[in-house]
């Protein structure tokens, strides 16, 4: 038995696995907490749209001459601006959030393709596949540090604004009447989602990052009975699912990001069967 446990935990002796576990767990936890609000507001597609916008930001960074690792510093403000733009359209037009997200995501992604094409022929080649699908096992110490800092900052901000944001999620008009600054909190929520998505894109890629925000929170929402319990359960699922998927992918020698998302997906379908009615 001890030998089996040793064999299962053997990957932890390698630095790149520890970094992957740290980044994945941080992303799983912060994505889950954020996801509780995103899912409750019916903004599941938002994180997906912001992930595609991040591609535009990373491409702009590369066009401006940064390295692939440093392009995140251009992508961060770029994606936050896109998030604020989506929220502005939601608030000031009759278009729904999904429509606003669809417009901004398509334009940003197209701009990204254009930016990559405008790079000089002498520029270093870009691993577009890496941008799209990420590589959790290749997380650098710098990327891990950025992920951990963003996760801690976002969780701390959510701990402060969470009760008011929850009230605004329940009913924005009643919350406003109780003194909750609803529009400001909505802008903050989208900006925080943009931050998490950008650091997530660096680790699991454009295509899969929204799963960290949506799936654990959606799963917890199926079985939890209060917002606080849903948040705690979402974090457990996000971190646990990420760790399990990481180890499983290592031992089975299959794609890490995909295994993590499939693990989270399996938990979702399990919850669907045993959901509260």
């Amino acid at each position, binding site marked *: 038995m001890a030998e089996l446990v040793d064999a299962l935990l053997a990957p932890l002796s390698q630095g790149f696995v520890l970094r992957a576990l740290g980044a994945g767990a941080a992303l799983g936890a912060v994505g889950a907490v954020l996801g509780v609000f995103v899912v409750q507001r019916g903004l599941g597609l938002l994180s997906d749209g912001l992930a595609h916008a991040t591609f535009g930001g990373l491409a702009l960074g590369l066009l401006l001459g940064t390295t692939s690792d440093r392009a995140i510093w251009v992508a961060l403000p770029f994606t936050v601006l896109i998030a604020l733009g989506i929220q502005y359209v939601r608030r000031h037009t009759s278009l729904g959030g999904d429509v606003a997200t669809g417009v901004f995501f398509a334009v940003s992604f197209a701009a990204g393709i254009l930016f990559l094409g405008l790079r000089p022929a002498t520029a270093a080649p870009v691993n577009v596949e890496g941008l799209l699908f990420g590589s959790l096992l290749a997380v650098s110490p710098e990327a891990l540090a950025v992920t951990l800092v963003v996760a801690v900052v976002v969780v701390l901000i959510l701990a402060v604004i969470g*009760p*008011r944001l*929850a009230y605004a999620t*329940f009913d924005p008009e*009643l919350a406003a*009447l109780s*003194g909750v600054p609803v529009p400001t909190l909505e802008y903050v929520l989208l900006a925080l989602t943009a931050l998490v998505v950008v650091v997530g894109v660096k680790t699991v890629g454009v295509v899969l990052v929204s799963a960290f925000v949506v799936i654990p929170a959606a799963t917890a929402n199926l079985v939890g009975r209060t*917002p*606080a319990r849903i948040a705690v359960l979402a974090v457990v699922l996000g971190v646990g699912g990420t760790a399990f998927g990481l180890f499983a992918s290592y031992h089975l020698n299959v794609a890490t990001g995909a295994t993590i998302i499939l693990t989270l997906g399996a938990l979702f379908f399990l919850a669907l069967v045993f959901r509260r009615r």
Partner: protein
Amino acid sequence: MSEAIRAEGVTVDLGGRRVLDEVTFDVARGEFAALCGPNGGGKTTFLKAALGLLPLRSGRIAVLDTTPKAARPRVGYVPQVKTFNAAFPARVADVIAANRRGRWPLRLTAEDREAARAVLVQVGGERLLDFALSRLSGGEMQRAYLARALVNTPELLLLDEPTAGVDARGRAEFLDVLAGIAERRELAVVLVTHSARAVRRLARRVVYLHTTARAWGPPDEVLDHDLELSGAFSGHDHADRPFCEDA
């Protein structure tokens, strides 16, 4: 006696349409007033303006001798359409506690529960304390929202068609509860309703709003002497057949 609401020349435009035009009337403290008129006449818009949720194009509304926004902590509000997020796991006690605290209670304290229970008792809904909001019937929902509105001991209560969607028995019970609370607490109340019976029974004054305040006075005067209103409310016999069904 100072006013609970003083509206002077209130004009509100929404989506390029004038919804309220030079509306002027007042409601005294402790007075029970009914706000009536056809659908689209501006009743809900007036309440929202009195809550500071809508900007005025011109004119002025003073609520409890201050601005609508400053008065909010002293005003209870029961909305017509319950716009809450049905996917949000909310119990009645949570909703009442949220209004009391100004934020969502991640954990209900004993004090929260006691405060919620006390107001639910007043509206005859004590058993609703731990009920999921999304599973309440129309009548239960109105009691829960009335309890929510009362938890901060308001001086003014604004109710927007609170018995819409409630059956006849539920309507009568709700109005009984409301009348009792208004009297005991000496609350100023503005009730938006289409029911002539509710107006006659509860209101000391009626404002008939159809973009402008077309009539304003005691129920008998407004209901009996204005042909338009008489027809609007009840046909010819003043039976309780609302102009627009409460349902």
